[in-house]
């Protein structure tokens, strides 16, 4: 009796410590439900074919990396709508600089990260110093970036060398490099939020800026830092996309809807839009839900417009699965 109750307690404590966000249950439901539909209406490959499983994750890499950055910003009660065009500018600039030559790769990476840091810095400065709502501020900067790219590039530009495509296509043993990168980014995001001073400060700023300021935080710096990291994650997504597409085009970011989808996955993952609550593990689940959905829809050969409808409905249902019990009114 006693031993079982102790181990029971241990188990409960363990579960509480790792703190699985409720959205993982939703992920399991979607995965099983999709798999069963696939068994009935299609060839039932989702459960049996490992390649499809890996593909779900590879598809999620691009959205996953930028969603981690978006999570940081949203934890700080801000938002970044400029990531889509940051991805685009990374894609076109890097392939333009590389021109298919391996020797240009370091320069290209340096330049695009420089651009990313600059964009994040500008976003952060506008939001904190001019006190403009982050929604409008980043909407403005995304228009500016959009204008700059479309004025300079109009189509696929340059190309990436074979050596750079390892990021998108090669595998380390059985595991694709892209998945390792995604895991590293998620882990870095977790470490930053839960194991560093910066993370603690960010939760403080997101929970209540004024309280944070009064307790001696340099709230502006924390938020600017979060925005810089978010833009850098968008740059990493851009590099991943360009290494898969082999050449950058100005529309890769907005066509992938990376701005709104990264926000949606973050919120689906349980991070509060009002800030101060949430984390990257939930976001990862949100991203995987989107990946599973894509794969299931493809397997079932669904009408593309119906896909969009279902996507919208499932975003709402996923968030509803844990908000409907809350006592607080949503805004």
């Amino acid at each position, binding site marked *: 009796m006693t031993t079982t109750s102790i181990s029971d307690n241990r188990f409960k404590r363990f579960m509480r410590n790792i703190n699985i966000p409720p959205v993982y249950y939703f992920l399991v439901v979607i995965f099983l439900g999709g798999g069963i539909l696939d068994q009935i209406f299609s060839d039932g490959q989702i459960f049996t074919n490992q390649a499809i499983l890996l593909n779900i994750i590879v598809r999620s890499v691009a959205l996953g990396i930028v969603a981690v950055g978006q999570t940081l910003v949203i934890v700080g009660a801000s938002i970044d709508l400029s990531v889509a065009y940051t991805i685009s500018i990374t894609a076109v600039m890097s392939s333009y600089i590389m021109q298919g030559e391996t020797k240009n790769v370091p320069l290209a990476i340096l330049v695009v990260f420089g651009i990313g840091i600059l964009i994040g810095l500008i976003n952060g400065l*506008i939001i904190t110093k*001019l*006190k*403009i*709502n982050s*929604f*409008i*501020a980043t*909407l*403005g*900067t*995304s*228009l*500016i970036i*959009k*204008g*700059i*790219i*479309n*004025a300079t590039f109009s189509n696929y530009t340059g190309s990436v060398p074979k050596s750079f495509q390892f990021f998108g296509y090669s595998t380390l043993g059985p595991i694709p490099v892209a998945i390792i990168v995604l895991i590293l980014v998620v882990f870095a995001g977790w470490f930053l939020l839960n194991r560093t001073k910066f993370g603690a400060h960010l939760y403080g700023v997101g929970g209540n800026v004024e309280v944070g300021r009064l307790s001696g935080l340099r709230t502006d710096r924390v938020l600017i830092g979060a925005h810089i990291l978010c833009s850098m994650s968008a740059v990493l997504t851009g590099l991943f996309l360009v290494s898969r597409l082999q050449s950058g085009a100005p529309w890769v970011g907005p066509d992938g809807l990376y701005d*709104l989808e990264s*926000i*949606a996955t973050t*919120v*689906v993952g349980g991070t*509060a*839009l*009002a800030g101060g609550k949430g984390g990257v593990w939930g976001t990862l689940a949100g991203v995987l839900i989107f990946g599973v959905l894509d794969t299931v829809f493809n397997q079932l050969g669904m*009408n*593309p*417009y*119906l*896909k*969009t*409808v*279902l*996507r*919208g*409905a499932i*975003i*709402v249902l996923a*968030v*509803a699965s844990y*908000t*409907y019990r*809350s006592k*607080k*009114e*949503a*805004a």
Partner: protein
Amino acid sequence: MTTTTLKQPSKFLQILKTIWNGIKRVPAVYYIFFGIFIVLGLLSPTYQSANGIMAFLRRTSPLAILAIGEMIVLSTGGYDLSIGSIVTLVVLGSSLLLNNDPTMMPTAIWTMLALGLLIGLVNGFVVSYLKIPSFIATLGMMLLVKGGALYWVGGAPRGYLTENWRDFGRGYFENIPLIERFPYALAILLVLALVTYFIYHRSNFGKQILAIGDNVRASQLSGVRVRLVRMIAFVISSLFAVIGGIMIGGFGGVNVTIGEGLEMQTIAACVVGGVLLGGGKGSVMNVIFGAFTMEAIFNLLNLLGLPKPYKDAVQGLIIIAAVAYVALSTRKKK
């Protein structure tokens, strides 16, 4: 207090001071709008004639209607991102229903208004009862409505819009003294603005909207039926989006991307008009002028002959600058 035996400032200075205080009290959006509009007038003779000004107002009215609807939702502390998709739905759906048969016009309009009502109710229900932040709820609705509209028409525009349907957006009352013509669109805007003005500024319901935006808990405790008020706010926004969509379809062609990005433009117009994101502040008049300002900016950039990409960039800069100006000038007053 008692030591103010200094001589009183002269009458003249006092009058100047009252005028100056009055000037300071005028919201920033009017200076921005009239500033841009005067530049427009100097650059192009079109904007010096009553006819040209009426054409400008006709073009802007749909955005202004969308903006006052959005303002109601923004004032409760929410967002409505689904309005762009509603415009797409209205244009695509109506052209399918009408299919060049003018007698179908009332049916098409009532169908669209009913759909708008339904969308607004669902938005409101999802936000109020499922407790989903409206940003996500209406983002989901945006995908749903857009996908649904495209699925309905089969992916490409089908059918035709009839003349009597298009007249709502592009028609004029003719032979009006002094100004010659008066656009239907502006008349519709004025009626809706007046109705919204009374709801928003002169009724208890309006006070409740602002109270919710200010502090949900406090308004709940003082007896505001938060969920009901939220639902109505989303319904108003959706219905206004339908009306705006009917007018937009009047002068644009039938196009699957017709409503794209409108939600962002509308929110930007509201913010330029002094609406606080997060709720608690707004004004019908200022928001209408916020929409006028946005349209004036587009026209100015067109007139300067900038290619499309530069227009985007400059538009972004101007939005940030205008909002910073509005934000800074309201902060000083506090």
